[in-house]
């Protein structure tokens, strides 16, 4: 078997391996989403029971929610807890002894529950305001209105708001152990791949020239296509499986008299069923009571789902495989194609072989590099590539869908700078933040370094040590302390102002004071770095230069301008570049001091990206945002590097 054929087979093998690894990850994340949805459905059903109870004033309705909560753990195996919480009081609880009880204010877990309720309430309110303000949202939510938590033992808790007339009334929360879902694996693909590879290994060794290239291309293309198709089918299978399990869960509720489910076999065509839609995206913001439901195919029993009092909730994209329009070639299969295609080209060009030779020749160098590179590969590069790829996707129906450039276009084409969430507004704030910080850091740091660089100055060691302290203190601590110092009533700044006869300032109510709080905090902790760098550079300037200049009659300013500054530059320029990148991405200070107050105006790009991901639940948008930030920084450093030649020496 010749070398080129080996390269082809190796390329195909790596592509198959990559496929299996990714399929494994995808399998796990699908299974987790299924578990979360399953618990969420129960929580919503419980919330709905509460709404029914408060709407109907007959005897039958009395205690409906409590009956439902008590029945849940019995009806559905794995359910550990279910309750309705209004502020700090349980309206209903699966443990009858806790119904009507209040939360224990001393308990840490109860505090978490209280905070979750508050968070949901705030999200409901914010969504209303957001829709009021921004009509392009339509019925959609800007905030997710659902809190999912996974305990170390694997149990999943989902909390959702219970709304009456659009107002937040209580929180419904259900905790359940995950249902065991057997791992499904697209075994066909590796089998098919191995067969192809064996075949090619047998035949390919005898081929030469064009025949070899054509054969190798055939092998790779065949494998990639097989993967792409198998992947799609497999994903549909997994989803259908989850859908059936979901119906089974609903059936369990039904058998306990909690629900009645109607399933009328009408063939596969009827599969996309909108039982009710989750309010995270596309259609109805509120859950509707559904009288009947249609599920096709091999769900065995016919269950009648009497909606009198209870409803079934399920997201369409989940119950119906492919209902969201068929995923076809996913980002993953495109990824496999790229990997396999790349390997194919490498193999064809003989680069793999050359790389192998290089690895042998430079084995020492690569041996020293490899531990760091393996770590970087798994925990830095793969996350980064995955993160960037998320920028081209968005979560719809609880799963990531490929949306092309939508996120980037959404970010960059909105020129309404009057809204603080606007990208260009944020960019302006970030540039202002970075420039003012770096200017202050450098000027203060350099000024102090010049003062300290005097060999006859007494006690300069003490000054130097004390002035480094701000750098040494962990910055999240600094941020929290400074936030306290800017407190309107008790903060040191307002007390000082009052002592001097000024009015106290409400620091976080308008833009400039809030910006000032961030700026002063960051200046405090940032100047020592520049001071230390300047001091180190100043100390390496030989004193005879100054002596010669004095002899020549140079003034103090001339000495600074013509000796000190030029000799400082080689150390200062890289420090300024690094400082700029750090300040541009300085998350902790903004997030912890002003927290973006007022109304997100003082947020910079990085904190806003965080909010898109973890507060507004838009990972795709956040990833696109972060990618844009990254591109800005790379362009900035490339340009400054070109101009200043700061890293030139390092590459030699």
């Amino acid at each position, binding site marked *: 078997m010749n070398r080129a054929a080996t390269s082809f087979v190796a390329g195909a093998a790596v592509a198959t391996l990559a496929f299996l690894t990714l399929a494994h990850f995808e399998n796990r994340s699908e299974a987790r989403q299924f578990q979360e949805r399953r618990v969420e459905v129960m929580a919503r059903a419980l919330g709905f029971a509460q709404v029914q109870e408060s709407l109907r004033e007959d005897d039958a309705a009395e205690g409906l929610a409590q009956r439902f909560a008590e029945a849940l753990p019995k009806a559905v195996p794995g359910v550990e807890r279910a309750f309705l919480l209004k502020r700090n009081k349980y309206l209903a609880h699966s443990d009858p002894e806790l119904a009507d009880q209040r939360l224990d204010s001393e308990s840490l877990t109860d505090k978490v529950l209280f905070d979750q309720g508050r968070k949901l309430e705030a999200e409901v309110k914010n969504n209303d305001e957001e829709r009021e303000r921004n009509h392009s949202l339509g019925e959609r939510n800007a905030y997710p209105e659902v809190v999912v938590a996974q305990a170390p033992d694997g149990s999943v808790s989902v909390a959702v708001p219970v709304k009456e007339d659009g107002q937040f009334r209580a929180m419904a929360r259900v905790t359940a152990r995950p249902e065991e879902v057997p791992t499904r694996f697209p075994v066909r693909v590796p089998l098919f791949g191995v067969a192809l590879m064996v075949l090619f290994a047998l035949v390919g060794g005898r081929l030469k020239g064009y025949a070899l290239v054509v054969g190798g291309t055939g092998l790779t293309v065949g494998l990639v296509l097989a993967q792409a198709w198998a992947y799609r089918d497999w994903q549909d299978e997994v989803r259908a499986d989850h859908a059936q399990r979901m119906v089974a869960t609903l059936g369990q509720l039904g058998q306990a008299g909690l629900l009645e489910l109607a399933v009328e076999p009408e063939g596969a065509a009827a599969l996309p069923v909108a039982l009710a839609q989750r309010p995270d995206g596309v259609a109805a913001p509120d859950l509707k009571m559904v009288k009947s439901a249609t599920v096709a195919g091999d769900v065995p029993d016919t269950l009648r789902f009497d909606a009198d009092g209870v409803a079934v909730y399920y997201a369409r994209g989940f119950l119906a495989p492919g209902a969201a329009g068929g995923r076809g070639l996913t980002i993953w299969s495109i990824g496999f194609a790229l990997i396999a295609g790349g390997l194919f080209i490498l193999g064809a060009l003989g680069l793999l072989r050359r790389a192998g030779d290089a690895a042998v020749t430079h084995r020492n160098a690569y041996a020293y590099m490899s531990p760091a590179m393996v770590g970087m590969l798994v925990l830095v590069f793969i996350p980064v590539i995955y993160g960037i790829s998320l920028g081209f996707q968005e979560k719809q129906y609880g799963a990531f869908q490929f949306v092309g450039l939508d996120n980037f276009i959404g970010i960059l084409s909105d020129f309404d700078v009057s809204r603080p969430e606007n990208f260009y507004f944020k960019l302006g704030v970030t540039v202002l933040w970075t420039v003012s910080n770096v200017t202050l850091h450098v000027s203060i740091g350099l000024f102090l370094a010049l003062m300290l660089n005097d060999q006859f100055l007494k006690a300069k060691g003490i000054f130097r040590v004390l002035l480094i302290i701000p750098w040494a203190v962990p910055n999240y601590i600094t941020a929290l302390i*400074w936030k306290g110092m800017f407190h309107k009533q008790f903060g040191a700044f307002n007390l000082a102002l009052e002592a001097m006869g000024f009015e106290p300032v409400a620091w976080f109510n308008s833009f400039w004071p809030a910006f000032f709080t961030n700026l002063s905090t960051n200046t405090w902790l940032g100047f020592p770095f520049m001071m230390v760098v300047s001091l180190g550079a100043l100390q390496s300037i030989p004193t005879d230069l100054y002596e010669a200049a004095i002899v020549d009659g140079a003034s103090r300013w001339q000495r600074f301008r013509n000796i000190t500054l030029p000799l400082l530059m080689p150390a200062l320029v890289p420090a300024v570049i690094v400082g700029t990148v750090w300040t541009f991405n300085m998350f902790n200070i903004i997030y912890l001091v002003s927290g973006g107050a007022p109304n997100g105006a003082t947020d910079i790009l990085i904190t806003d990206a965080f909010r898109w991901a973890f507060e507004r639940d838009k990972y795709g948008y956040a990833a696109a945002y972060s990618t844009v930030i990254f591109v800005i920084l790379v362009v900035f450093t490339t340009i400054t590097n070109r101009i200043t030649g700061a890293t030139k020496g390092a590459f030699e």
Partner: protein
Amino acid sequence: MNHDNNPFSGGRILKMLFLAAVTVAVVYPVLWVVKMALTPSQGFDASASPLPSNPDLSNFVYLFKETDFLRWLLNSSVVSATTTLLGVFLACTAAYALSRFRFPLRASAMMMFLIQQMFPGVLMMVPLYIIVDNLGLLDQLLGLTLVYATTAIPFCVWMLKGYFDTIPRDLEEAALMDGATPAMIFWRIMLPLSLPAVAVTALFSFMTAWNEFILAAIFMNSSEHYTLPVGLKTMVGQFSTEWGHFAAGAILVSIPVVALFFALQKQLVGGLTAGGVKG
């Protein structure tokens, strides 16, 4: 640049007064935290004086007796120490290769280390969470350690490589003549000669792990696995803050880092300026 050598000339006295004023202003918030830590009440202390009125240690006692502080301290120590060892080892070997060997893809590797610094952390959080979860390391100290060590590497590699570059090659060539292997040169010559830079690298790795807050908050679910930053943040609540306890904790958290900074301040000045670029 003052070329008279009288330490008590008028100019120097003025300079010292100015520096003293700046230092007091800079240190004031720190003194104030010390005061809150020594004051038993949990309010945010209103008086401007940096001295506590009735100092006692009740806040520190509370931390150790009533909270998991000792547990968090242990977690942070374990994570930071392992991160430092791992990060320094990985960075030293990589920096050595980059400084002393010429091999294909060397420039790309260096560029990667440089660019990695610019990735917004947010971009990494969701993917990292998924990967760490899939490795089965969520809510475990090991997972956090691995992530910290790798995020600390790029900065450390650049700094160490800059320092290695300043060490003359003659030494190694002489050793090669005497029959030393590259491994022996690395362990016996390079590392001992670059101890100042290694110390600074260790300090930065340590600080990465000791001070990091967001990833720890996202990865760690159970209180017994919290690191110090996450634990401390639980005292700064949304509705009320136990300022006395927080200040006491803040001081205990800061002491090791501040002590390390003071111990290494000479190396800090040299280590940061030697390489030229610390991207």
